[in-house]
């Protein structure tokens, strides 16, 4: 990492707040003679709003001393919006995965109702939906409880 930083000789270094190597990076800035200029974290320590925004977004920034404040702020804002966009993508992916899992469990619950109570598919779904609304819970949660209960009552699930 040190070699890369020496090669690139950056004005600003952004690193994910969750990256365990942050302590390594900071130590490097403190002691290394290979990194020419002293690097301080966040150019303006009094700019609490920017610092908070960055940490909120999960970014930490190390900025070369002497870089113009205005320039740093605009770079920082860009970095934050990139991080936010990336976070949103990650979240959307996570949601998509959950939705897929939800759909699977709802399908199994419907199949159970159709088998054991001789319901049609739309009726089975309507019952799940009505129960969820009455209980103020998500359909997937009701479906999950049903599949679990059926499993406990004698392995209906795999029939």
């Amino acid at each position, binding site marked *: 990492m040190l070699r890369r930083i020496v090669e690139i000789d950056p004005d600003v270094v952004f690193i994910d*707040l*969750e*990256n*365990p*190597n*942050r*302590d*390594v990076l*900071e*130590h*490097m800035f*403190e*002691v290394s003679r290979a990194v020419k200029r002293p690097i*301080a*974290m*966040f150019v303006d*320590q009094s700019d*609490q709003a920017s*610092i*908070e925004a960055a*940490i*909120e977004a999960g970014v*930490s920034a190390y900025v070369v001393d002497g870089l113009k404040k205005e320039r740093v702020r605009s770079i920082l804002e860009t970095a934050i919006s990139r991080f936010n966009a990336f976070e949103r993508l990650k979240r959307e992916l996570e949601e998509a995965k959950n939705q897929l899992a939800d759909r699977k469990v709802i399908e199994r619950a419907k199949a159970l109702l159709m088998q054991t109570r001789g319901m049609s598919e739309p009726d089975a779904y309507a019952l799940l939906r009505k129960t969820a609304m009455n209980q103020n819970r998500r359909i997937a949660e009701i479906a999950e409880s049903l599949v679990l209960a059926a499993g406990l009552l004698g392995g209906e699930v795999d029939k």
Partner: protein
Amino acid sequence: MTESMCEVRAGFIPLVDCAPLVVARELGFAEQEGLNLHLSKETSWATIRDRLAVSHIDVAHILAPMPVAENLGLGPLQTPMVVPMALGTGANSVTVSRELWQALSQFLDAADFDAANALSALGRVVRDRDASSLPRLTLGVVHPYSAHHYELAYWLASGGLIPGASVDLVVVPPPLMPAALASGHIDGFCAGEPWGTVAATDGNGVILTTNAQIWQNSPEKVLGVREDWAKSHAEGVSRLVRALYRAAQWCDVEGNQQQLATILADDRYVGQAAEQIRPCLARRLKTADGEFLTVEGFLNFASKAATFPWTSHALWFYSQMVRWGQVTFSSQAAEIARGTYRPDLYRAALAPLGIELPSANAKVEGALTSETPAGSTQGQLRLGPDTFFDGLVFDPDGLEAYVAGFEAKDKQS
């Protein structure tokens, strides 16, 4: 509970000594005190510091010298902090690579973790490597402002091995230490448990000595509290100190070790197998011969006043910051260091429990060569030993002379 619940957000790093916070939450010690304790697992000390700075968290399991460094204005974001209690003593080891162990073992009679013997062996290996123009040894520490760094440097320098001149010290995050050792990136490291045991168990490392051998019953982590939060939540601080004190006592009970290892093994906490955590809790470490050896005083959660924030500990860290050029000496700065640790808050919180409290706020570090009765509220407290392996004594009132003594010695080496 008639009083309203107090919300506390605490950051921690996955290490065995975060146990009191985890136990306070999991076993209800926090709730009993009317605390809603939220725990947030972090990946680096830098992130703990930053989250404190922007008030994402109120308190943290933190390296004992870090709040002192923060208050002295070292490091990027300075957040005024207070330390109302310590989170135990010990639980560090110096672990070396198999290769370095091979070289060391020819100069060692026994694999018994003895710090003085290990150091003289290391000195011979370093000189041999110099003579054959081999590259300098590199040792990992967890942070520049850590007990690990100061104790390792203290130990090395005492044998004439000056960091930066005879050996190199680099920062490596604790969970990455075993991998850094296996890949040859470092030749050894000083880190908290379970990482020494993990490296010793996976076969890439050998535990050479421990901080219990370098400085007996020495400080390690503390409860760091944002000063503004401590001021606006005085009652919250007291409740937290009481909850953590009770949790720490629970952690020290031998019969609870199995349950504690299971709790800590959870992914939300340390996230390592319980078998990797149990040896440390049993104060047992694996030797090069594959045996487990009991290390007296390797770890104390509560006993021997292990939660007491001795101002002499804060001042010892300050003396080492001066010694290694992180800060210059001034009596004003020494006062800031001393004032960071707050035995007054500790006493105020624990007085209602009617427990043993030390009479003094500071002690002469290294003066107790064995377990000794100490002045306390009920006259039953026993402290020590707290000796340094080289027999030196640190009198906090003679800090300037203590540092000057090192300066002359370090230059000679």
